[in-house]
């Protein structure tokens, strides 16, 4: 059993709280992504599992042992660092077999395991080279090899792809996912890149300022973000967020008034809203379209049209100087700069968040 359990893990450095009461259960065999902007605490969380940081309070459990006081080397984990952290003075083969040597594995066995892992990761011809003679991608594979050669209980990965160029990143992403599903080792993966997170993780734990915002599958996070931060963080281009106020419509139905427009919340949320309430309305760019004035919900002036090949982004400005992004397919008629347009919101795609806490407005239980 190689679950990883976090129970109220808190880490303070002098005056700053890097991680605040982080609680999470990672399933055995799961690839869980820790996602968030720089400084959100995700790497610190990872390091508490590694044993490189000691939690100020709270417990970390690997399998069925609480590991707070156990040395990194006794936790049966392996880590891939952002900078790979290869031993510069050792050959690739020696780098990979280092953990085996430390555990007293005999020479024949060591060689066998190293060769096996090297073949898996396509490092066969490079075993006698030193890290300085390898390319970035090759070094990364050596770091991975060193991690998997011991078949640990848990893999820890700290932004392993961020030092690779874009094309290599896409390829290596797929390789890591394939490797993990084959080895079925529980993996904790830290990244700030939401595309990586969305494509790799079974589940994603989104963090901000040391606090866990939401943990869910990529789809769930995308379709039902728990707060404004998660809503804005996932998705490219990001969700359009507009301050608004709940009001009572002519027929008694509730609506949300935003600058230069009106939006219609789904009926299920009516019970959770009160007229006069301040909210943040969120609509994804792909849920918006340009239409004739009669059918539109928000009016705006086009500032810029970005042409991206497969699609176009229309950036328009509403009365309060905030911008909306509308995603159009390549073939849709494009407006001119400066043109006044009418933006339509697809029914049922409106997200509402409470101003202040930022939490999602959900139907009362």
């Amino acid at each position, binding site marked *: 059993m190689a679950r990883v359990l976090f129970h109220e893990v808190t880490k303070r450095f002098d005056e700053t709280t890097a991680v605040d009461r982080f609680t999470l259960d990672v399933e055995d065999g799961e690839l869980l992504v820790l996602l968030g902007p720089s400084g959100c605490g995700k790497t610190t969380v990872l390091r508490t599992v590694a044993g490189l940081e000691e939690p100020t309070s709270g417990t970390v459990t690997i399998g069925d042992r*609480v590991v*707070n006081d156990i040395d990194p080397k006794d936790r049966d984990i392996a880590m891939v660092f952002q900078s790979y952290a290869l031993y510069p003075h050792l050959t690739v083969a020696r780098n990979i077999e280092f953990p085996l040597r430390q555990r007293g594995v005999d020479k024949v066995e060591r060689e066998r395991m190293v060769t096996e892992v090297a073949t898996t990761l396509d490092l066969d011809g490079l075993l006698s080279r030193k890290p300085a003679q390898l390319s970035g991608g090759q070094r990364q594979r050596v770091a991975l090899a060193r991690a998997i050669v011991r078949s640990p209980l848990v893999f820890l990965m700290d932004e392993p792809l961020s030092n690779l160029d874009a094309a290599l990143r896409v390829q290596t992403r797929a390789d890591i996912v394939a490797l993990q599903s084959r080895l079925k080792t529980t993996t904790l993966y830290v990244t700030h890149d939401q595309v990586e997170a969305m494509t790799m993780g079974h589940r994603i734990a989104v963090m901000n300022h040391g606090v866990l915002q939401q943990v869910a599958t990529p789809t769930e996070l995308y379709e039902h973000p728990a707060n404004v931060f998660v809503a804005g963080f996932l998705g490219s281009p990001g969700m359009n967020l507009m301050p608004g106020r709940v009001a009572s419509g002519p027929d008694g139905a509730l609506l949300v008034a935003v600058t230069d427009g009106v939006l219609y919340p789904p009926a299920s949320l009516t019970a959770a809203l009160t007229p006069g309430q301040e909210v943040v309305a969120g609509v994804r760019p792909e849920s918006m379209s340009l239409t004739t004035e009669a059918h539109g919900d928000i009016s705006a002036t086009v500032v810029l049209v970005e042409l991206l090949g497969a699609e176009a982004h229309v950036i328009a400005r509403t009365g309060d100087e905030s911008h909306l992004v509308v995603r159009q397919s390549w073939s849709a008629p494009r407006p001119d700069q400066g043109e006044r347009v009418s933006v339509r919101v697809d029914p049922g795609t409106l997200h509402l968040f409470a101003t202040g806490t930022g939490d999602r407005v959900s139907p009362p239980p």
Partner: protein
Amino acid sequence: MDAETSLTDPTPDATLARNARRARRRRRARLTANYAALTAAAIVILFPVYMAVVNSLLKEGQIAEQPPPLFPNHPQWHNYSTAWTSGHLSTYLANSAVVSITIVVAQIITSILAGYAFAFLRFPFRRTLFLVCLATLMIPFEVTLITNLNTVTSLGWFNSYAGLAVPFLATGFGIFLLRQAFLAIPKDLEEAARLDGYGHWRFMWRVAVPLARPVVAALAVFSFLAAWNQYLWPLVATGGNTPLYTVQIGLKELVGTQADQLNVSLAGAVIAFVPLLILLIVFQKQLVRSLTAGAVK
């Protein structure tokens, strides 16, 4: 592992707490041992200086007391004034200051000029000349001693400030440091300045040197230290003529004349040491930077 512990329950709290306490105690013990060792080392290293200060404040007979006193109960501050006057320390300190400052200023200027040329200008044999400057660092002092003495004498500068300072007006180390600092200035800056009509001289003093200021400071501290602590050359180049002694040679003289008055000699040593101690504390960062310039390649 306890077979009864359910696989889904975390370890019971009592065991957790006990392990945590034990680990914490182990860690604290290790930490204390660490600090103890460090403190012991610090005491051993500071000890000579501490004893010097203590002894300098003792009465004449007290020094010979057994066990040696660790703290002056009746500090004899007048030892310091004796050292000052009979050791002519005011003169010697002034000499050291004049010579050292001259050397520092000269080394900074020559290093900036040459470093700039090597970094920004193109001319034939540039690389060779740079290596030549570095090669001077390989030439040890004892080899040049004899001739330099002759040269200085024939120039009429024997036993003079000029004679004390002149062999050290330039240093390959300084040229190396400044060239490196200038090379680190982004090319864009240089080109922008060129477009703005800056000639080399203006660029050097308005842009390059201000940007290289940390390195200049490091070099200044290092040069001052080296110049102030010189012993062999001031000894030889003053030839026993006391008025021009630097404070280091002055110390030697003090020791000689105060053969029995160790407390006074020590007072003199402390006086000579104090400016440098201040230097260390205030300019520690610069000092470390200059000293490690060669180590971290």
